[in-house]
């Protein structure tokens, strides 16, 4: 383990030190620097901006946050620091990238199954990626149109410091999931963290990925830790990616997530986001059906309690004809929690015969909980199927009455209903190994144990 470098703030100096510390080649340092320079020119979004109203940016003080540096560690066996018994649930791993950060140490480590390496899969940590998979880093550098305009993506491109790159060749099928874990120790305060996950899947390959963000949290600390994660998934022709993300940060973490899914011809993705933790959870998920026959299922469940704010923004972008997308998000709010779901459907002129479905259901458990659901449609093709629906409301009193009439008290009845509310989405999760893990986390959160 190395001493972590605590920089004064998110600065150019930070970019340089990161690049140097990690021994990156010149091109990588240059990419970071270029991103940084563009970053400086862009304004921060404001809480008054339409897309940012429900994200409490004022919680962040960038002059105080320091970007942590991670050191790569190779060939470390399973880590005792990996909490939350995730690995107890996942019997077999395709591979694991584990990023760990405490106040005075940090590292990234990687483990790849024999099966995966025999099949030509590459899995490396971010500190190693510029040496071991440079072509992938370069290819993903500006693969999204937003990447030159978005303040937070630019920040991430300049400062990304943990996470990993998964590269799967053509025609590979692996059942066991690849797992990324970002874990913060309890003493990790006042830091900024830029996890970067790149998943590149070759033609006709089928893989499963789990991405877990977690932190021990500390009850004493009210200081905010900033996590700005960028996840990029690219599925080549005929590939099928199952992706499950669990955000279970402690309540001193401001968590920003960017996920880009890019689907080539006949490629498919199943993506499930489970949002439980963090003071602020903001997640933007863009799925581009770039070529004919691409199809996406983007699911989400989130449960927030007092003091938490949840904001999901999904973009289903149909660029090519005969593409389908299905979005289903379920958010439940306790006490004073607030949430916002923005669902954008974009169907371009050429994307005829596309089929886009969007559904968002919001369950208000607390009397002061507030949820907002805003659909936004931009449909330029004339021969498409598109449907969207949103509901916001309290628990159905007739359901409560029914359960009460069987002897269940109010609390138990409500817990069953909330769990059921999520279950209809969670039941679609194709990664069996994380099922019990997620159910357990959700149950704990439902019962106010986390």
């Amino acid at each position, binding site marked *: 383990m190395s001493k972590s470098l605590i920089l004064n703030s998110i600065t150019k100096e930070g970019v340089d030190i990161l690049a140097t510390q990690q021994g990156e080649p010149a091109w990588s340092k240059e990419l970071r620097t270029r991103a940084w320079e563009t970053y400086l020119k862009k304004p921060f979004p404001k809480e008054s901006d339409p897309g940012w109203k429900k994200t409490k940016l004022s919680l962040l003080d960038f002059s105080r946050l320091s970007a942590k540096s991670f050191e790569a560690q190779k060939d470390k066996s399973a880590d005792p620091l990996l909490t939350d018994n995730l690995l107890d649930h996942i019997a077999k791993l395709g591979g694991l990238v584990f990023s760990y950060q405490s106040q005075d140490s940090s590292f990234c480590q990687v483990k790849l199954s024999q099966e995966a390496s025999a099949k030509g899969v590459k899995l490396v940590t971010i500190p190693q990626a510029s040496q071991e998979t440079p072509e992938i880093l370069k290819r993903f550098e500006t693969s999204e149109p937003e990447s030159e305009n978005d303040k937070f993506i630019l920040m991430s491109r300049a400062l990304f410091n943990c996470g990993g790159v998964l590269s799967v060749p053509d025609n590979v099928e692996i059942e066991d999931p690849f797992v990324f874990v970002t874990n913060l120790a309890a003493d990790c305060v006042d830091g900024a963290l830029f996890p970067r996950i790149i998943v590149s899947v070759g033609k006709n390959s089928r893989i499963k990925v789990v991405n877990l963000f977690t932190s021990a949290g500390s009850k004493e600390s009210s200081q905010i830790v900033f996590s700005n994660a960028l996840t990029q998934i690219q599925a080549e022709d005929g590939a099928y990616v199952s992706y499950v993300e669990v955000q279970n940060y402690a309540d001193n973490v401001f968590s920003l997530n960017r996920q880009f899914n890019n689907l080539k011809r006949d490629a498919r993705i199943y993506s499930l986001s489970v949002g439980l933790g963090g003071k602020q959870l903001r997640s933007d998920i863009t799925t581009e059906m770039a070529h004919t026959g691409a199809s996406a299922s983007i699911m989400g469940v989130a449960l927030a309690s007092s003091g938490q704010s949840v904001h999901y923004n999904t973009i289903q972008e149909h660029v090519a004809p005969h593409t389908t997308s299905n979005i289903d998000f379920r958010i439940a709010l306790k006490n004073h929690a607030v949430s916002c779901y923005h669902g954008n459907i974009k169907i371009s002129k050429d994307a005829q015969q596309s089929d886009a479905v969007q559904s968002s259901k919001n369950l208000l458990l607390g009397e002061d909980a507030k949820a907002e659901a805003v659909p936004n449609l931009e449909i330029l093709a004339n021969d498409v199927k598109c449907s969207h629906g949103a509901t916001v409301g309290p628990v159905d009193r007739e359901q409560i009455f029914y359960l*009460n*009439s069987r002897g269940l008290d109010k609390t138990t009845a409500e817990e069953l209903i909330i769990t059921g509310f999520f279950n209809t989405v969670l039941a679609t999760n194709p990664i069996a190994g994380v099922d019990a893990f997620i159910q357990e986390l959700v149950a704990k959160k439902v019962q106010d144990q986390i």
Partner: protein
Amino acid sequence: MAAKTKEILRVEDLHVEVDGKSILKGVNLTINAGEVHALMGRNGSGKSTLSYALMGHPKYTVTEGKIFFHGTDITEMTVDERARLGLSLAFQYPVAIPGVSVSNFLRAAVKAKRGKDVPVKEFRAELKKVMGELGVPNEFLSRYINDGFSGGEKKRLEIMQLSMLKPSLAVLDETDSGLDIDALKTVSEGINRLITPESECGILLITHYQRILNYVKPEFVHIFEDGKIIKTGGSDLSLKLEEQGYEWVSGSVQSEAQNAGLDLASKS
């Protein structure tokens, strides 16, 4: 069956309002252990309202009168307290609860009713027996409560739940409607099994049809109209209803009432 004397339910002059509208207008009813009471009456006469009020639905406000269960005044009790005391209701229209599987729910309900966790093995065995008796297929267990089930399947599930909960009063609101001929027989047998010497279960069976009463034989038949019981008789009463409809009851009750000097002229 000989008349039992142990009182299970006593309803005294019950008046109930829903959303400010008065629906029940003075119901009096006593059910003793082991008795089957049939409750019949026109659509909209208030039968379901009575069943909800007995169960304690928060929307149904008791404005006058009292409900006693095993001699205890339960008029102010919460729904789940009543259920744990042994009151139960098979719904006319059971509500769907997506995402909650029948088996998870049943386990929680049995635990609540019995006040302790039942060992999984024991629970399974008991459930298997009940399902076998009622002809409930295994796959129903993993499906969500009342979600996507047919009308008849829902009714079967209601009786399956009651069979597991072993209530001491079962209010069955049109459990027979929607059941095919064979199902009617199996479900009726299930209902009869609720009455055991230990359970001392009383049954209030709301129905429109004689056919279920051929299987579940009532000691008493009550006719409900405009929020109260207007006539009580033996099992012959339901046969007469089947033949002649409600017209004659309303008429005869009206003339009886007029003879008694009561004014019921405002009744439709």
